[in-house]
């Protein structure tokens, strides 16, 4: 079947891009298949696992439930565009130190959700971290090391 492609303009990680993508494509599809942005993972394609989470205009959303057409004129940010972000760098370091990364499939989504939490609440309780990450499923770590990492990063950042 011929796939009808549509041209969209959006800002990706600070750069204006034009992308031809399948009509009605999700942002996840466009990122991975057309833009080769691979940090956003396709876990469930149902909004449940959180592995695809990216920022649109600074707000975390599920890329698998977002239509690319709706991102026209908006700013999309993925892990590829987070270099130089102090909160993210601190979270990443703590994730490595505490063993919060095993296969890494969930990690990008976890980090984006965790960074969003720390922006809203720089000194979250352990319970608040667990609640904020309840939409990010990890099949490897058992979560404790992830929660340790986020709490450790929060402590370091708030000093």
């Amino acid at each position: 079947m011929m796939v009808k492609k549509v041209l969209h303009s959006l800002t990706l990680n600070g750069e204006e891009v034009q992308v031809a993508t399948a009509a009605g494509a999700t942002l996840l599809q466009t990122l991975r298949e057309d833009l080769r942005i691979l940090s956003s993972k396709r876990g469930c394609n149902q909004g449940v696992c959180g592995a695809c989470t990216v920022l649109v205009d600074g707000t975390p959303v599920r890329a698998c439930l977002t239509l690319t057409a709706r991102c026209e004129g908006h700013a999309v940010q993925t892990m590829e565009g987070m270099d130089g972000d102090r909160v993210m760098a601190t979270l990443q370091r703590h994730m490595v130190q505490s063993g919060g990364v095993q296969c890494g499939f969930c990690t990008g989504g976890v980090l984006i959700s965790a960074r969003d939490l720390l922006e809203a609440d720089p000194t979250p309780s352990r319970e608040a971290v667990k609640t904020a990450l309840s939409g990010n499923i990890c099949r490897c770590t058992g979560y404790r090391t992830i929660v340790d990492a986020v709490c450790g990063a929060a402590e370091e950042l708030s000093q």
Partner: protein
Amino acid sequence: MTEVLSPLTVDDAIALLVEHDEAMPLAGGATLIAMRNASLVEPSHLVSLDRIAELRGIDRTADGTIRIGAMTRHCDTAACAELTGSLHVLRRAAGMIANRVVRNMGTMGGAVANADPAADYLPALACCDATLEIAGPEGRRSLSIHDYVDDWYETALGEGEIITAIMLPAPVEAPSAYRKIARVSGDYATASCAMALDPDGQGLRVAIGACGPGPLRDRAGEDALRGKLHDPAALAEFAGRLVALADPVDDVRGSAEYRLRLIPRLVASVLSELAPQKETA
């Protein structure tokens, strides 16, 4: 292949829904795009409602009535300072939907249109005596939330109709709360309870979620309970009437029998939170 259309007015959105047989309105996409990804729906066109100014924002009108635009995201409802007193229940319900990320996406109009029996807004809105503003090919109409759900996933919304806003009576100073029993944080409810006390503390309004096709509300029972909130026999009778109205299913979130047992406990526990029994001298 789905074509995405982005009209700027309600009239244009309705015209597009009428023009294309297989078109569907798109709000936050949290349910609709998930369904499309699973090939459960295959709309030819998605009529995106996100550019329609009329559907946005929460406003207080001159008489105190609160108007919530259909495209209001759960995160904005959960943070809305206008939802005080008797309307606090809705704010609480919004904050318990899914998780932070999904709350950034889903909208009140989309959640109400979807009418998932285990979802959180319908019981809260039934407790608030909300009214839906609806626009369609035949014009505009208002509909009481109590006349909205017809059956499992069936609502009074007609072909080509969209919800434009949810109207709430002016908040009064009286406590209200929402309680949800769920397997884990962020899951849909096994059972839920929305409750608001009358300003004089003598009566209440209660709606139970996830125990039938729509929220359970027994207004005659509420009247009978007035003045007897702390009379255990009267309260048990009231809860029994709600249980009799219930029509729960067995599913992964709990058995029908378990849900029936939750109803009286939820009512009693939310009531004790809102109206702690005073020590009598």
